């Protein structure tokens, strides 16, 4: 059956800053919509394997060169054909606009256009992340040249299965099926993304039938929505919510591994996942089973307050101590709740937590200032980018390499060499072993305490079918996979 002419209404949490993928600063809010319009050079299968889409590739020179072959006959919504010029243009624009892109392509050397359908990326060292990050999305150079900057931004055109129909700022974005799509024709003809920040309202809009589907159902409401006769499906994305330590300062108790271990034992992670979040988020110890380097042996430290107290005593803190506990105050559900719960568990073993919710902009500034400050006292509940991206190397390198981001944990001696090696090991099995090793060190040293991993819950009407798979990891929402019965 062809999709009806009524649009499928999908309520999402936030409005994207822009749909042009090369320009976005807030990928999380852009992706669910822009990935229906734009495509990446590297596509994903439902199992999370990298597969050819608008291009196929070949890795050469031990991971230093990547040759892309563009699929012929692919057209942008503007009618312009997709060529390597567009790839180059997209690359350049991303390089210029997106600091994140620039960082992902750390070892990038140059790009070479061979002909309209072939181009080659050169790297200075083997880059294991270039393909897995799939960061490059393709915009049209011809279109840009023709319409200029403003229109390029306001009426973006991609090669994807849907094209932008309308964007009412602050209200909704309409997309409609691209009838000339090179791939399989999706069933849904039109869809509308409405931005409903307020969780309660988003749920209500599903219940009243205004929305056919909503994203980011808050965990406590999943049961409620199900009871009201709606279908829910889950997508296990990461980043895990974890307790993190700044271990640069030898004068704080949590500088000592024993204390961190005690903390790990003191927190009942299962209770948080099951009672606070009704069992919805996943409680992976570190990596998810499908991830490279997953270690089935690795287990969470169990909840054992007695052991925690004993460890504290051993470490010389029989009567506990005072500890700050920061979190990013914002509006993403779960962080604050987790923080409060962690504080309560820790209080029970004598660690008196001073919770401080700090708004993102200020927190980031603080973290930045703390980076190299050996006097910092920081323990926080936060989501470190852990396995958010297809290859754990990316996350481990950004979070735990001593040159990484506002990092809290350093282990120059043991960890850095392993990570550095993993970063240039193109062979998956070998890299997997390295990752396993690094993770083990992190786990044993209690660099951080994983509590739960983010899980996106989609709720929809019964007649709508949508099963998020690993290919939705960044995209989060691909309308082409939706079937309306």
């Amino acid at each position, binding site marked *: 059956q062809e999709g009806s002419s009524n649009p499928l209404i999908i309520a999402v949490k936030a409005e994207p800053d822009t749909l042009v993928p090369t320009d976005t600063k807030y990928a999380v809010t852009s992706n669910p919509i822009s990935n229906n319009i734009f495509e990446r050079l590297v596509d994903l299968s439902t199992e999370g394997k990298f597969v050819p889409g608008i291009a196929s590739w070949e890795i050469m020179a031990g991971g230093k060169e990547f040759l892309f072959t563009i699929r012929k006959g692919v057209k942008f919504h503007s009618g312009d054909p997709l060529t390597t010029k567009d790839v180059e243009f997209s690359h350049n624009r991303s390089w210029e606009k997106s600091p994140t892109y620039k960082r992902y392509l750390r070892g990038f050397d140059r790009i070479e256009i061979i002909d309209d359908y072939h181009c080659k990326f050169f790297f200075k060292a083997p880059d294991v992340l270039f393909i897995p990050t799939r960061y490059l999305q393709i915009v049209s150079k011809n279109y840009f040249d023709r319409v200029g900057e403003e229109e390029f931004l306001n009426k973006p055109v991609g090669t994807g299965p849907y094209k932008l129909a309308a964007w009412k700022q602050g209200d909704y974005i309409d997309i409609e099926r691209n009838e000339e799509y090179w791939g399989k024709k999706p069933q849904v003809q039109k869809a509308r993304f409405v931005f409903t920040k307020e*969780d*309660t309202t988003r*749920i209500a809009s599903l219940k009243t039938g205004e929305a056919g589907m909503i994203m980011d159902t*808050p965990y*406590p*409401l999943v*049961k*409620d929505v199900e009871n009201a006769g709606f279908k829910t499906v889950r997508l296990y994305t990461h980043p895990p919510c974890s307790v993190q330590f700044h271990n640069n300062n030898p004068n704080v108790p949590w500088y000592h591994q024993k204390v961190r271990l005690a903390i790990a034992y003191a927190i*009942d992670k299962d*209770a*948080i996942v099951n*009672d*606070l979040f009704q069992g919805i988020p996943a409680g992976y110890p570190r990596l998810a089973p499908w991830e490279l380097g997953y270690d089935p042996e690795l287990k969470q430290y169990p909840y054992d307050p007695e052991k925690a107290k004993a460890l504290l005593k051993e470490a010389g803190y029989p009567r506990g101590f005072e500890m700050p506990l920061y979190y990013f*105050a*914002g*509006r993403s*559900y779960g962080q*604050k*709740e987790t*923080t*409060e*719960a962690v*504080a*309560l568990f820790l*209080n029970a073993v004598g660690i008196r*937590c001073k*919770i*401080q*919710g*700090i*708004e993102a*902009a*200020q927190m980031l500034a603080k973290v930045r200032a703390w980076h190299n400050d050996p006097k910092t006292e920081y323990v926080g509940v936060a989501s470190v980018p852990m396995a958010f991206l297809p290859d754990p190397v990316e996350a481990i390198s950004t979070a735990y390499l001593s040159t990484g981001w506002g990092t809290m944990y350093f282990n120059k001696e043991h960890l850095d060499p392993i990570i550095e090696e993993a970063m240039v090991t193109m062979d998956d099995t070998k890299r997997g072993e390295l990752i396993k090793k690094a993770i083990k060190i992190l786990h044993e040293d209690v660099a951080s305490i994983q509590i739960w991993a983010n899980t996106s819950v989609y709720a929809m009407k019964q007649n709508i079918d949508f099963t998020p798979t690993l290919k939705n990891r960044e995209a989060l929402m691909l309308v082409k996979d939706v079937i309306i019965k």
Partner: protein
Amino acid sequence: MNNMKIITRNPHHLFSVLKHVPVIPLLLLLPMIVCGIFGPYLYLHDPTAMKLSMALKPPAWVSGGDWSYLLGTDNMGRDLLSRLIEGARASLIVAFFGVGFAGIVGVSIGMIAGYFEGKIDNIIMRFVDAQMSIPAILLIILLAAVLGGGLATIILSITLVFWTQYARVIRGETLSIKQRDFVVLAKVTDCGTFRILRKHIFPNTTNTIMVLATLQLGRAIIIEASITFLGMGIQPPATAWGLIISDGRIYMSTAWWIPTFAGMAIMITVLGANLLGDWLRDRLDPKLRQL
């Protein structure tokens, strides 16, 4: 010449008015104030003691409820009643200190503007105008972004936002009191400016201040709740009603008691404060009816 007019114009004295008891406002307010002050001695459960296994218990009288958790529990298994009692404190602290500081600032500035008039007055009033043309909530959010969230910030923001109304009203009062004969007479008897402000003008504005303050209490509580609701206000582990609503609003359909009771706590307190304000206003000076 009309007796009637003289009677109503005669401003009552605060103390003589306070001898009477405003029953309903006090019935509404007193429990809240008692909770705010004696909270720690009142609650049955430690408001921060969570038992995740007890999460989301409904109020006692609803099936599945537990009489030791009279109003049910929240998502962390904390006793809602105890949390509401604890929350009273934050709300009242914000309200009292915010409104109090705003009063001190606003009244002093208002008296100065009104008494000296001229340039000072002009400058002050332009600032007041400017500030009043930025909606209070927006200004507070901006301030919260500058100062970071938390109790102190909210108190400070409420002070910074609320002083203007005092300043405006008190300036007006001062302008008219200043014209009254007793102030002129004080000048004739060689009272200094400070003495006149302190002994003659200020005491005559206390009625207005009291009325304004009680009416603002309610607004302060609502603003605090609103800011907290937006995530910029009070942060845990502190508890405030706005925070309970804010955290509990997603339970609206599954655990209605959390946002409902917290909302009612706000409503009752604000209602009490407003009623008290009305009562004071009617008693002290019917002229103030327009505040």
